[in-house]
């Protein structure tokens, strides 16, 4: 930290100084990293969506042979893994990056280079895992694709070397470990940022609910990911070094994996949904022209959901025969989560009650979130009951449930966020007509695709089957689901067109196009590189709706502001870790040692780099 540099480096007044590919690769600006996260997440969302289309095409007809059993198993494994780890989580991370520093009145995150490292590691980890789709020939295997095929939940002992001899599961277990490191680094970064970098007057209970829910999410990330890390280390060691953690014949236990995976996996659900709940809590008041109803209760219920999410994991394992006492306890704790969740929903409706509701696109997506999340919540209560779950688990009923939560909930909320903050990020408002078309196609498509799955599940269609006979009686429901999926695909085309059109000739947004009350709308759109010309003093929870709610923020900085320069050490460190992962795949000690050296040198250079803040 060369503090002397602060005064003699002038603030880059314009963006001209920061153009070109290299400036993006080495950037440590939270706004640019946010944009990179967002673009990458949308890309992977389209990849995962394409996988979903193939899955639905295969299931559109009974006894279909569009794809082979092997390919189908790869598709649903990668669809789940991609949507959870490469689409929803990083899309949330895009908002954490871009929005949180602006909402709390900071100039950047606490550790800008660590932030860049998180992004590059996430990108390379995602590409690493997807590279498996074309890596077959490298392993001397006939088929082109050796993509992971053990399900996103990767149950032991199907994932052992004995039952999955190919490199497929190696790609999955190593790729997931990499993504975990990226998430952990980001988690600590945002916790530190939110605790330490708030502007004067931005007390915890003045923070926007989005930042609050992001804060809770980061705590879940830094506590849940170590659990999956352990589970994955065991599996990696079993596969690469012949340990026997999950090997029954050598005294291992297959249920150990289930406990570890779901001890991570259930909190993970809240990692996916809480950011969207935060977005909706920020959007609803703006378009109702009323403050959030019961701010404190919404915040506390989010905290409570985050904590209670730790006590319910075994509801994923009722069919494994835990015994009546454990079933009763985990059934009851699971039902309890419905209470804080219900409270949030009632508070959102009460926020709109008595308001002046404008049906702008972000609002439509937020209302759609509530309408569909309720359905996912109610089917969730159904299989919180262990006996009912014995019939519903591993069927399409559960597929319907979590798609209502994750598509009807998380994705709708994230789209609300995209339409809401797009003007802040790019300075242009997205086209309302296309936005509304996107929403209605999405709303119809999501319901058409997923509601019939309740029926096909209750009528006995299991999950993860590449084929089913016509006399199962669920053909019609599957046809409707497939049609719905294609409507979602059309909605995504409309969305992409809208983004392209807006970036080219969208209407300029101005500082605060929605008349929002939060701090990020007090600066220009897009915000200057230093965010705030002076660090503001916040005097209200709704600074822009309250007279004198925030100190004046001049358009031009009254004195030079130093902004951190770029660094290529984060991206090089990430590359080193990918080389290490490749060494695991290639089972090459030599390469592993080389990769370890790269990582060590990069971290050393990073630590001693004269990086001014």
């Amino acid at each position: 930290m060369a503090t002397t540099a602060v005064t003699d480096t002038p603030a880059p007044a314009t963006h001209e100084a920061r153009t070109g590919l290299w400036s993006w690769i080495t950037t440590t600006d939270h706004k640019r990293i946010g944009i990179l996260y967002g673009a990458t997440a949308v890309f992977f969302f389209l990849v995962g969506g394409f996988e979903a289309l193939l899955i639905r095409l295969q299931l559109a007809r009974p006894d279909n042979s569009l794809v082979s059993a092997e390919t189908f198993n790869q598709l649903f494994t990668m669809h789940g893994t991609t949507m959870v780890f490469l689409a929803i989580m990083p899309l949330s991370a895009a908002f954490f990056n871009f929005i949180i520093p602006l909402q709390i009145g900071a100039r950047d995150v606490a550790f800008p280079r660590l932030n860049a490292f998180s992004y590059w590691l996430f990108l390379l980890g995602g590409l690493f895992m997807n590279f498996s789709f074309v890596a077959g020939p490298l392993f001397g295997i006939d088929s082109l694709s050796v993509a992971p095929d053990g399900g996103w939940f990767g149950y032991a002992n199907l994932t052992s070397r004995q039952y999955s001899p190919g490199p497929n599961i190696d790609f999955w277990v190593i790729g997931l470990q990499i993504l975990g490191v990226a998430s952990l680094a980001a988690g600590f970064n945002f916790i530190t940022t939110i605790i330490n970098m708030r502007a004067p007057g931005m007390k915890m209970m003045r923070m926007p609910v989005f930042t609050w829910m992001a804060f809770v999410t980061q705590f879940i990330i830094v506590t849940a990911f170590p659990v999956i890390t352990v589970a994955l280390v065991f599996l990696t060691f079993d596969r690469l070094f012949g340990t026997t953690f999950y090997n029954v014949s050598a005294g291992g236990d297959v249920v150990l994996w289930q406990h570890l995976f779901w001890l991570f996996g259930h909190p993970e659900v809240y990692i996916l949904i809480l950011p969207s709940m935060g977005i909706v809590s920020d959007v609803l008041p703006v378009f109702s022209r009323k403050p959030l109803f019961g701010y404190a209760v919404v915040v506390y219920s989010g905290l409570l959901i985050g904590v209670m999410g730790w006590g319910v994991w075994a509801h994923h394992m009722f069919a494994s025969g835990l015994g009546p006492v454990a079933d009763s306890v985990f059934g009851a704790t699971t039902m309890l989560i419905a209470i804080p969740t219900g409270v949030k929903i009632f508070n959102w409706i009460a926020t709109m009650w008595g308001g002046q509701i404008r049906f702008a696109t972000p609002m439509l997506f937020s209302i759609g979130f509530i309408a569909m999340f309720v359905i996912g919540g109610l089917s969730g209560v159904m299989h919180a009951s262990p006996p009912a779950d014995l019939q519903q688990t591993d069927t399409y009923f559960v597929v319907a449930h979590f798609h209502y939560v994750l598509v009807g909930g998380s994705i709708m909320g994230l789209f609300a966020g995209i339409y809401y903050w797009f003007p802040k990020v790019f300075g242009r408002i997205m086209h309302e007509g296309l936005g509304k078309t996107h929403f209605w196609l999405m709303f119809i498509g999501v319901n058409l695709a997923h509601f019939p799955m309740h029926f096909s599940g209750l009528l006995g269609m299991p999950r993860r089957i590449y084929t089913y006979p016509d006399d199962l009686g669920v053909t019609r429901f599957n046809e409707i689901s497939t049609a719905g999926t294609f409507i979602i695909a059309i909605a995504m085309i409309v969305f992409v067109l809208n983004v392209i059109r807006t970036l080219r000739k969208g209407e300029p947004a101005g500082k605060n196009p929605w008349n929002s009350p939060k701090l990020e709308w007090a600066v220009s759109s897009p915000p200057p590189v230093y965010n705030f010309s002076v660090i503001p003093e916040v005097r209200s929870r709704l600074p822009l709706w309250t007279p004198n709610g925030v100190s004046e923020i001049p358009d031009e900085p009254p004195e030079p502001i130093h902004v951190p320069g770029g660094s290529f050490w984060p991206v090089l460190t990430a590359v080193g870790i990918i080389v290490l992962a490749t060494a695991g795949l290639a089972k090459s000690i030599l390469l592993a040692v080389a990769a370890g050296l790269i990582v060590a040198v990069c971290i050393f250079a990073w630590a001693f780099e004269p990086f001014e803040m």
Partner: protein
Amino acid sequence: MVIRHQPWKRAARALRFLVPVALMLGAAACSGDSFPQSTLHPTADSGRAIDALFTQIFWWAVVVFVVVEAALVVTIVRFRARPDRPEPRHVHGNTVAEIAWTMAPAAILIFIAVPTIQTIFEIDGGAPDDALQVEVIGHQWWWEFQYADLGISTANELHVPQGRPIELVMRSADVIHSFWIPKLHGKRDVMPGRVTRLVFTPDSVGTFAGQCAEFCGESHANMRMRVVVDASTDFDAWVAQQGATVPLDSSDAQQVAGRDLFFRTCIACHQMDGVGGVLGPTLWHVAARTTIASGILPNDSASLARWIGNPKGEKPGAKMPQFPLSDDDIAALVAYLQSRR
């Protein structure tokens, strides 16, 4: 005011369209025969207990759904922005309302939790002494059933007597599977290194379909099975048949050739007449079964020939090797197997 009523008219028109659709779906769900794996048409005590519980929870969910979605729709219709409306009052909360909508879901959950816990102990309470015990062993991708007390074993089609408690004692020979006959009971995982149990008393005679419900590898979708619930006397007859040796019609040259071929090759993995390997399902009395290849093909000559000729073509990843057999060899094997009643 006229404007304000229009949305309700639209809603009414939508209802006129939606109600027939709902009725159609309801009618479809009401005939269990067209849905062989329906969870909503139970034919055993455990299945019925689960279905009754689910029905209760379902109606609570319907009530909550209607209340919440109606509140949402009424709110967005009633408070949509209109130019003549004044700026909304800035309400920050209401303690009474918030306590009310915390308590209401809590109360409903009590009505769900109490019967839930009752049902857990009802269906998970262990087997009575007179239960018929069957050992279930899951394999990639077929089911083995052993009746230790009766000294017989079979595969993929489990026979049980009507009205008698059945206790399945289950384990896996390889990866995790899940035993699921929706009309009889919920699922229970079948695991390596652990024993799990499932207890039910079937109350109706018939054949009930099911399949593996835990993803278990390439042909998970093809790991199907049937439970045949026989009237008590029919079950006894079936047991007697399973224990008996089937005589070979030595005048039929094809059957004899098939027998010789079987005992030279297939016997390495399959049981016949009380001898043979254990890697594949027993084929003693295979002709008495209605399906082959764990429930994916009908048990007829054409399907058997296709299966023997190319197992992986019918069931991807099948562990059964493809032997270099001539058409005559296959026909002989088929003739032999078809005589094994």
